[in-house]
């Protein structure tokens, strides 16, 4: 682990902020490792001390509201935007070296490909630029994977937005990447296309290809991602595995005849909110198997009439809204 340390020490411009992680603790070569990224555009701070990692073969979702700095972070990782401070390693190599991107595939948010080339020619160009040799049959298979097999010879200029985004996915995948960075990969796709992308992400996951996914479609992220990083106002508002972030469970109850003793019993199980006869009790991440039956038995013992008991998981969407409403400083991990 001397590599990053030496590189960090060598860069004079690096602003080692308080968020700096202990470098020695890092796994030998994550797919993405970035630390203390900062970027200002004139008076606007777009990214403010962002650090996170994407492990090899891990699928990480980047979430956050519009203008949170997600696309800027992605562009910094790929060397398309120069950070004011911070360090990036891609697949174990400093991102200052263009060769660090040799194993990286990228679908930009603003996807446009040479309109005067055919889809097959665009792929051939990207394979050449990536410095790898991919046989024509494999390139065709890649186009088929995104549903463009029969349009391989057509000029990109005649493609619809959705088809161009599909082509962009093929471009990101064609050079056999170990890391794929997808910025809003389904923004122009119909529901069928979105399902295709979900399958594609799952197949990448199965092949141990690391993925960094920026998407507004939380359901998608929840289904495929191992971990999420939530950005808000240029900072990491929260990050962790889905189990960590969504661990909290809740119990929804419809009760009748609740007195102060019953309320005390409910509070003992967890913090609760009440809306007339509806109660929501927050349960610990890993509740005891007896927690819910005991609570119900005690409530009945206290003379409460129980109409409904519904255990529930908090969705990523609710959690995301919680985190964003609470403000970035309180929920940091």
């Amino acid at each position: 682990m001397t590599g990053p340390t030496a590189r960090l020490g060598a860069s004079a411009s690096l602003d080692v902020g308080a968020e700096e992680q202990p470098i020695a603790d890092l796994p030998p070569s994550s797919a993405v490792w970035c630390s203390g990224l900062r970027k200002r555009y004139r008076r606007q701070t777009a990214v403010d001390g962002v650090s996170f990692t994407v492990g090899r073969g891990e699928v990480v979702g980047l979430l956050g509201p519009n203008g949170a700095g997600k696309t800027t972070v992605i562009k910094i990782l790929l060397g398309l935007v120069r950070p004011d401070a911070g360090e990036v390693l891609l697949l174990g190599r400093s991102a200052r070296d263009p060769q660090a991107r040799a194993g990286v595939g990228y679908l930009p948010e603003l996807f446009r490909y040479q309109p005067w080339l055919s889809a097959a020619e665009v792929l051939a160009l990207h394979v050449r630029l990536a410095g790898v040799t991919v046989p024509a049959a494999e390139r065709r298979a890649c186009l088929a994977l995104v549903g463009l097999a029969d349009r391989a010879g057509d000029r990109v200029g005649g493609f619809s937005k959705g088809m161009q985004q599909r082509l962009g996915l093929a471009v990101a995948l064609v050079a056999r990447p170990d890391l794929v960075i997808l910025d809003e990969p389904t923004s122009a796709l119909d529901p069928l296309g979105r399902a295709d992308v979900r399958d594609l992400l799952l197949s990448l996951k199965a092949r141990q290809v690391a993925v960094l996914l920026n998407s507004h479609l939380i359901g998608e992220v929840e289904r495929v991602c191992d971990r999420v990083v939530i950005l808000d106002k240029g900072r990491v508002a929260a990050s962790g595995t889905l189990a960590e972030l969504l661990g909290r469970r809740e119990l929804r109850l419809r009760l009748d005849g609740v007195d102060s003793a019953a309320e005390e019993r409910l509070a003992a199980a967890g913090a609760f909110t009440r809306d007339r006869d509806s109660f929501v009790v927050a349960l610990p991440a890993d509740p005891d198997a007896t927690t819910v039956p005991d609570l119900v038995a005690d409530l009945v013992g206290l003379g409460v009439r129980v109409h409904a008991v519904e255990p529930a998981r908090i969705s990523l969407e609710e959690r995301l809204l919680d985190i964003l409403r609470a403000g970035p400083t309180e929920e940091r991990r």
Partner: protein
Amino acid sequence: MTARIVFTVAALTLQEAARRRVLRSLAVLTITLLALSAWGFSRLDAEFGGLTTGEAKVAASTVLNLVMFGLSLIAALGTAFLAGPTLAGEVESGTALAILARPIRRSAVLLGKWLGLVAFGSGFVALAGLAQFLIVRTTLGYWPPQPAIGLALLAAQTIVLLTLGLLLSTAISPMASGIVAVGLFGATWIAGVIGGVGQALANDSVARVGTISQMLLPTDGLWRGAMHAFQDQTLFTQVGPGFGASPFLSQAPLTTAYLGWAGLWVVLVLVLAGLAFQRRDL
């Protein structure tokens, strides 16, 4: 590795020029100009059949230079308007994002674009220029004394302008960079004409206008060198004073120092464009 990227991008640039109708519109413009000049030259011969050989040479040289100026203008406009969109346009549209996220250096992409444009501009100048020479030869029986040197200087002028276009396109929008490049090209030409008048009138300060502008942007200097290579070498003694005042005749060949400066100018501007492009946030 880098050389492979440079050639890949150069080939892509040529392919773009060929497929994006730039080539076709350039060809239409050029053929129109060549046809007009062929008609003009044949009229020149018919109407002024009684010209002496000396007079015919002056007329042929002047008109040839005039038409070549038209060609150089087409080459300049064509490459400047190709150079702008090729960089700034790709950055604006987002095409550059996917390309530059590949394991390549931005300088390699810039150099590749430059090389492709150089090949395109030089190829155009060589073909169109040669066609024009053949027209003059058929109609008036005149063949320029140094055709290869003249065309090389004309190509160099195009290269200077497209390099400027590339530098501008790293900083400003595609259309603006084309317009500014062509505007500067025109301004330098006019400054060169003013300088020529200053020389003819032996007014040093006016003459200096031309010299300084030819140093700042070597397009006009190279153009004057090219004209000198196209025109009959005995003209100067025939026409005498007032020669320098003509915008379509040139008094002296280029010095090696000036050629060296033009070469250095291209390298400096290209390096500057590379640095600007390297620092640019996409």
